[in-house]
């Protein structure tokens, strides 16, 4: 069931080895409506993965609340799906068993979960590999399996942490299209993290621009492009340029500062 997500004044700091606290998130506020596809845009080390780990429930924020459908939920593990940055299939499980893992944890009987997992593999074009182990799959295929494993459990919200950033251009663009097709069918709420402006513009309803660390939301940029979108369209390119300007200005080290430093 699609769910809306609200982040209220999220703060997160990590204790440092040298002592003291290292603030990563500072007052992140965001509201994502039911069924929206949102991208979070920010560079390396901006706290994007940290943000998703917190939303998923793997970590708790130092301050702030996370609301699902308007209710604060502390125990989010098992309700929020996460496709993480590193592909993390369980290497001792076949493709089918990896996809069925979440269902197994929920106690679904074997025949039923394998039936359901097979249906997803078919939809993902992976049915031929259902008996293969992860080492026998290519990077793109593994990423698809990880996505299938998340979707098959029908989570309230799907978080994706740069799922395509390690893939080549062809695979990346085709998986982007594939993801949009899936989303058009399932209408799940998706929060998709990326550092790639083009990807953000192509995929999402709006873009949440993060500041460098300690991260907060700088701007929410709507993407008013009709779907299905065309990468090469003039409007797409124009919007990319526009976003890139804002994104670039938030991330570039000041020229004078650079000159002084070097």
């Amino acid at each position, binding site marked *: 069931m699609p769910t809306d997500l609200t982040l209220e004044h999220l703060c997160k700091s990590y204790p440092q080895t040298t002592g003291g606290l290292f603030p990563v998130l500072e007052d992140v506020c965001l509201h994502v409506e039911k069924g929206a596809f949102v991208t979070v845009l920010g560079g390396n080390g901006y706290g994007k993965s940290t943000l998703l780990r917190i939303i998923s429930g793997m970590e708790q924020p130092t301050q702030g609340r996370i609301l699902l459908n308007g209710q604060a939920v502390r125990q989010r593990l098992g309700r929020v799906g*996460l496709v993480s940055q590193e592909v*993390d299939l*369980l*290497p*001792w499980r076949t493709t089918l068993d990896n996809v069925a893992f*979440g269902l197994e*944890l929920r106690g679904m009987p074997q025949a039923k979960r394998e039936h359901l997992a097979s249906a997803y593999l078919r939809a993902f074009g992976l049915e031929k590999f259902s008996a293969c*182990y992860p080492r026998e799959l290519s990077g793109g295929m593994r990423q698809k399996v990880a996505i299938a494993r998340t979707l098959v459990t029908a989570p309230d919200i799907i978080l994706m942490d740069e799922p395509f950033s390690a893939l080549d251009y062809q695979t990346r663009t085709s998986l982007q299209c594939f993801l949009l097709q899936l989303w058009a069918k399932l209408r799940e709420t998706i929060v998709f993290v990326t550092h790639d402006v083009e990807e953000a513009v192509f995929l999402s309803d709006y873009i949440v621009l993060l500041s460098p660390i300690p991260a907060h939301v700088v701007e929410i940029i709507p993407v008013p492009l009709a779907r299905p979108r065309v990468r090469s369209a003039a409007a797409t390119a124009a919007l990319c340029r526009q976003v890139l300007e804002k994104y670039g200005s938030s991330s570039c080290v000041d020229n004078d500062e650079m000159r002084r430093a070097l």
Partner: protein
Amino acid sequence: MRLLRWVGLLAGLMLWQGLCSAGIVGSAMLASPAQVCAGLWELAVRGMPPEFLLHKHVLHSLLLVGTGFLGALFTGVPLGLLLGGSRSARAVLEPVFEFFRPVPPLAWIPLSVLWLGIGFKSAVFIIFLGAFFPILVNTCSGVRNVSAGCIGVAEVLGASRRDIWLKVLLPASLPSILAGVRISMGIAWMTLVAAEFTGVQQGYGLGYMIMTARDLQRLDMIMAGMAVIGLIGLAIEHCLGRIARYLLRWR
């Protein structure tokens, strides 16, 4: 390549037979392959001591090693999991284990005879001690090296503590556990002969058989006994390798 493996073995045997036949090495020092074969035959049909047949010695030794080894397996794996998974358990137990680990199993013989008497229990205890630590240490390090990613996946999917133990930590550390199992089995088998020197009441066991042959100065039988121990060890290692390859086919 397969052929080459036999060439070395055959050449060694021929050299051995040659040395003995030519009288370069005296028969009081080394029995020839032919004599060893004859000794083996005698062990099998007449027995040493008489009526104590070879296959019964073998079965008895296998029972000893099997019991000691299974004991080590069923205590070492759970304890290793506990030690690897819980920091406080590690803090309490690691110093204890680290203290006992360097003590050779054979140094325990006097104590074990005192506690358990001469015989089966004592021998099993010595074998157990030899087999226990490699399994414990390998299981522990296996668990500690499980990637945070694998655990995170299960957590996000809503896994219980129990599921994380059984469906992530255990399978993920299986390669390490199996490596420990193979080392343990080797040590258990090697400890066997010494363990049987602690005395065996029923008069069975390969170690006991060799000691009896020594008392009677039957060099051929001593060496036949050694060959049997070597061959069985090889067979066990081969079987464990097969099992490991099957269980780790995902690698």
